[in-house]
């Protein structure tokens, strides 16, 4: 009986931690949506959202409220169950990946040994939400969008995988906290700068962000896989997409920008709590994401595939071989000295 009680207590604490992750994430998504629109507007010399609330800050919650009260339209010939499951899967998977993200030394819900593989696995599952949405809509444009998205995500996952391998060879562990701690002396984006660029661009493609937003290219495919969605399911897609973008920003931070570590380990900087640095870095990466959206034109589909398979894949493969050779010959690899 006692064991059962402690088990239930454990379960309740886990649920509590989940809520503790979910609510800041929700606030983060709202702010990210707002920042995205504001930055985009500023680049184009517009004002952006500025009517609802101070500085237009309540625009996103107002939009969300509007979507909640809209009717959920189920297309007549759609596969209704799959149609409704698809957005739920997208959102659930994007939130699930955050369970292993360390925001500060020791502050992480699940400090598992294969953290980076877990994130890689979860993000490779993300393609199913889009594929299911495109197929179940039983309509041409969503289907094209889904096919494009699936091909794109599978292609860029390969180069992301190799970039992760290069970082892992410098760390010697799959644990995300240990990846951050390994950057105590030097953040990885300095020695592995080309891989940082490859990861950043692949992250754009993986999250279907412009200039790689072909799955929802409005000039060709209406809205891609989201065409038939309205109301709440559409919001789930939107939130899932932005949580994925924030996840990719957090991944860039952890793999290359030293996670929660301060830039220099001196007094006034290292007195600031780690999660502040983490959030600052994620914000910086997100700013870069938003700027790319503002001033890079959309790729054509064959250019996208060429970049993925003929440029990034050989480049990241070369980086794996080169990094491992350097680490081996100069005896720099973890556990070799």
């Amino acid at each position, binding site marked *: 009986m006692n*064991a*059962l009680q402690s*088990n239930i207590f*454990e*379960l309740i604490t886990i649920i509590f931690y989940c809520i503790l992750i979910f609510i800041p994430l929700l606030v983060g998504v709202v702010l990210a949506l707002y920042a995205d629109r504001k930055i985009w507007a500023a680049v184009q010399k517009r004002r952006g959202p500025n009517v609802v609330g101070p500085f237009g800050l309540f625009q996103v919650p107002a939009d969300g409220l509007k979507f909640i009260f809209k009717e959920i339209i189920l297309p007549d010939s759609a*596969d209704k169950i*799959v149609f409704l499951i698809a957005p739920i899967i997208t959102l659930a998977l994007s939130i699930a990946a955050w369970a292993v993200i360390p925001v500060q030394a020791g502050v992480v819900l699940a400090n*598992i*040994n*294969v953290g980076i*593989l*877990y994130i*890689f*696995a979860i993000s*490779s*599952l993300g*393609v*199913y939400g889009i*594929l*299911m949405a495109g*197929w179940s809509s039983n309509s041409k444009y969503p*289907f094209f969008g889904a*096919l494009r998205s*699936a091909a794109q995500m*599978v292609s860029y*996952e390969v180069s992301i995988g190799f970039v992760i391998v290069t970082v892992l060879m410098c760390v010697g562990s*799959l644990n995300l906290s240990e990846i951050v701690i390994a950057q105590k002396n030097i953040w990885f984006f300095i020695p592995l700068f080309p891989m940082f660029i490859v990861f950043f661009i692949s992250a754009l493609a993986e999250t279907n962000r412009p200039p790689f937003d072909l799955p929802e290219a409005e000039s060709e495919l209406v809205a891609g896989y989201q065409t038939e969605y309205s109301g709440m399911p559409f919001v789930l897609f939107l939130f899932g997409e932005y949580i994925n973008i924030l996840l990719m920003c957090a991944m860039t931070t952890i793999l290359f920008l030293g996670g929660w570590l301060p830039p220099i380990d001196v007094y006034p900087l290292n007195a600031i709590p780690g999660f502040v640095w983490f959030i600052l870095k994620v914000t910086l990466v997100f700013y870069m994401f938003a700027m790319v959206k503002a001033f890079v034109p959309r790729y054509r589909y*064959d*250019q996208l595939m*060429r970049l993925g398979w003929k440029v990034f894949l050989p480049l990241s493969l070369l980086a794996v071989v080169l990094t491992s050779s350097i680490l081996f010959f100069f005896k720099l690899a973890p556990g070799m000295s």
Partner: protein
Amino acid sequence: MSISLLTFYLFSAILLLSSLMVISTKNPVHSVLFLILAFLNAAGIFVILHAEFLAMILIIVYVGAVAVLFLFVVMMLDFKTSLEKDNILQYMPIGLLIGLVFIAELVIVLINTRLDLSNIQILTNPLSNFLDQSNTEAIGSILYTNYVLYFQLSGVILLVAMVGSIVLTLRDREGVKRQIVSEQVDRKGKIELVDVKSGEGVDI
């Protein structure tokens, strides 16, 4: 009844049910989706066995790559017309035959192995001997030392399979316009900068 036991029963129940659904649903896309659910639950059982590396690799390789291609192909089939024509009885004999062969094999294996219940701990939790190092390290230290030859051999076989499938599908088509980026970017000899005097113009 611990939580890990409860999750085991949950995962196995969903695993069995979804594998049953794979063969019993009429819609092939639903079959593939149930297959993916089965893969995921198998990965969950791996996690319970402390084989988290295997679980993640199962998801990344089978669910993230292989099943996506499955779904790709099945989604593009026009199965609505073929559904009505299909007759279950047509495929029944061969299916039963394959099922019988599998059952016979399982029975032979069960008869020939004496289940030693004294080391049930190792049977249910085979990786407990390696708990001092992480699962990934344990697999790596065995795979790259004792079994490095087999590992390399399987890699070469996969490479040959990959090259083979590329060769089989490679076809040179005439009249395809390709974008050659290097030619586009390299503007030497293609662009000339000329100072034009006003009122005179230039010869092209």
